[in-house]
């Protein structure tokens, strides 16, 4: 079966765009894993919280898209810190598994809080619907280009933060070796709070990007969560550059799968990718730890 090149080109393009948007919450997930050492499944509900915060700012408040992104970052980040302090931190002494279960319960509660306030109906942001740009046989939407820019800016900011600021370096120190970091006088709890704020803030930004591109409802976060996990695992849990590479890989893989699989199976791709990675190269593409 010969596949036309332009079809593949379109799928790869779609995949790269989707992957960049996926990278933002994936970075958040993997950062919490690196610093706090447990998979925080409540990321799903923070994506939803960010999506709705952005919606309120944009549809109700009439603010432009970039302002909605900032609002989402702050609101989701704050929610992340508060829920971690109140709900997850007291569970940490009981072990990573208990905390992970607690995170699942937390995500259910938060999702239903959103449902309580907003109901189940789909909501769309107030944005003009513009036609796609076409070159040759590929097309891309202006909104997607905007989302790409936002995602890239967010990622660059994260990298810069970690590489150049004192707090960022402290985070990397705690991630590498918490005992050593403690000896050097770094306050692990403060780092944990900041990590939660940033990571969940990124999750919220991911939610807004979804909302800008499509529509949102209380299940928005839950739908992308498997792809987010896949991105983080494929890239290597705990590695932020890994999350970006993993996200792009998953994004493109999900699109290319359409060449042979029914579209309904797209989420299965993430699952298969995780299985493959864990069987062949458990530490992921760029990860260091797999124990």
């Amino acid at each position, binding site marked *: 079966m010969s596949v036309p090149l332009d079809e593949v080109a379109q799928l790869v393009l779609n995949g790269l765009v989707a992957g960049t948007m996926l990278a933002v919450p994936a970075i958040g997930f993997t950062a919490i894993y690196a610093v706090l050492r447990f998979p925080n*499944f409540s990321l799903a509900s923070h994506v939803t919280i960010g999506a709705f915060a952005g919606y309120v700012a944009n549809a109700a408040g009439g603010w432009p898209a970039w302002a909605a992104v900032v609002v989402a970052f702050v609101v989701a980040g704050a929610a992340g810190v508060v829920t971690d302090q109140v709900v997850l931190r007291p569970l940490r002494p009981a072990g990573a598994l208990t905390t*992970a279960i607690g995170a*699942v*319960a937390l995500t259910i*509660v938060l999702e239903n*809080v959103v*449902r309580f306030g907003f109901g189940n109906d789909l909501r769309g942001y107030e944005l003009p619907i513009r036609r796609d740009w076409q070159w040759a046989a590929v097309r891309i939407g202006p909104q997607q280009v905007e989302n790409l820019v936002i995602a890239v800016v967010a990622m660059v900011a994260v990298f810069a933060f970690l590489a150049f600021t004192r707090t960022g370096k402290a985070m990397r120190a705690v991630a590498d070796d918490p005992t050593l970091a403690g000896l050097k006088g770094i306050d692990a709890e403060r780092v944990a709070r900041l990590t939660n704020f940033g990571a969940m803030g990124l999750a919220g930004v991911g939610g807004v990007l979804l909302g800008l591109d499509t529509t949102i409802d209380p299940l928005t976060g839950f739908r992308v969560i498997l792809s987010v996990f896949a991105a983080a695992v494929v890239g290597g849990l705990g590695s932020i550059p890994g999350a970006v590479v993993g996200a792009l890989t998953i994004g493109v893989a999900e699109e290319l799968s359409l060449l042979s699989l029914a579209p309904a199976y797209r*989420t299965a791709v993430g*699952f298969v990718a*995780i299985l493959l990675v864990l069987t062949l190269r458990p530490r992921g593409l760029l990860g260091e730890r797999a124990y």
Partner: protein
Amino acid sequence: MDNYLVAMATFACLYALLALGLNLVWGMAGMINLGLVGFFGFGAYVSALATRRGGAPITAGVLLALVLTAVAGAIMALITARLRGDYLAIITLGFSEVVRLVASNEIWLTNGTDGISGIPGPWRGRVTPETFNLIFLAVAAVVVVLVLAVLQRVRHSPYGRVLRAIRDDDQVAAVAGKHVIRFKVEAFAVSAGVLGVAGALWAHYTSFIAPDVFVPLLTIYIVLALTAGGTGNNWGAVVGAFLVVFFLEGTRFITAVVPGLGAVQVAALREGLIGVSLLVILRLRPSGLLPERLPRVAS
């Protein structure tokens, strides 16, 4: 009213089987299975297809479900046994989603979203519905007792001690010469088998299954049941399951009384309460109602 109570007790027995299965891997061996609804559904479809399409007798269908689901569980565990529990958590979450997708889309096999109806039940159609319900409750209860007995034996056996050692610290267990991987895979397989049996029984009880039945929320109900009843304790699993069904049905009667809320908000409240209950228990009494009482070691 009696028929209703009998039906709810039957559902509680099926939930109890799920909780017992979860207890084997989580409570006793420290491995998490967040996709237990996928194994539940897998077992249900195997038995439904075997009896409805293949014409096999019900017992054969249930046994086939037991075996095939156990195999699926073994494969899952083989891939992830070497790794941290977090990876198992992620993989099992994904597994249940894939089962749902396959069930929805492979119409030639599973009838897709239309589901499989007319699944035979023991003596269904030859006795009154009330009698059928009573018979089935008896069957379910017997299975629960059997599984409970088997798992209690495991708990008190040297095998159970090894599992607990692995749960508490698998590196120490490995050093002590125990083949950790083998134990983990076996435990996971047996647990998956139990989940598959629960699924098969469900299919034969309700006579209809569809992908929509097997939602992740069910996994959370079972996790709640086990945590509330007592992780590590098999009786706790059973008690917890009955508590959860009581809770789920109880909120139905209560929410009829809550004023001023729309239907969606009531539903959000009910679901949110499940999450809150789990968190409260994890926080205040993580060992559950019936804490694990370690069997005394002969001195």
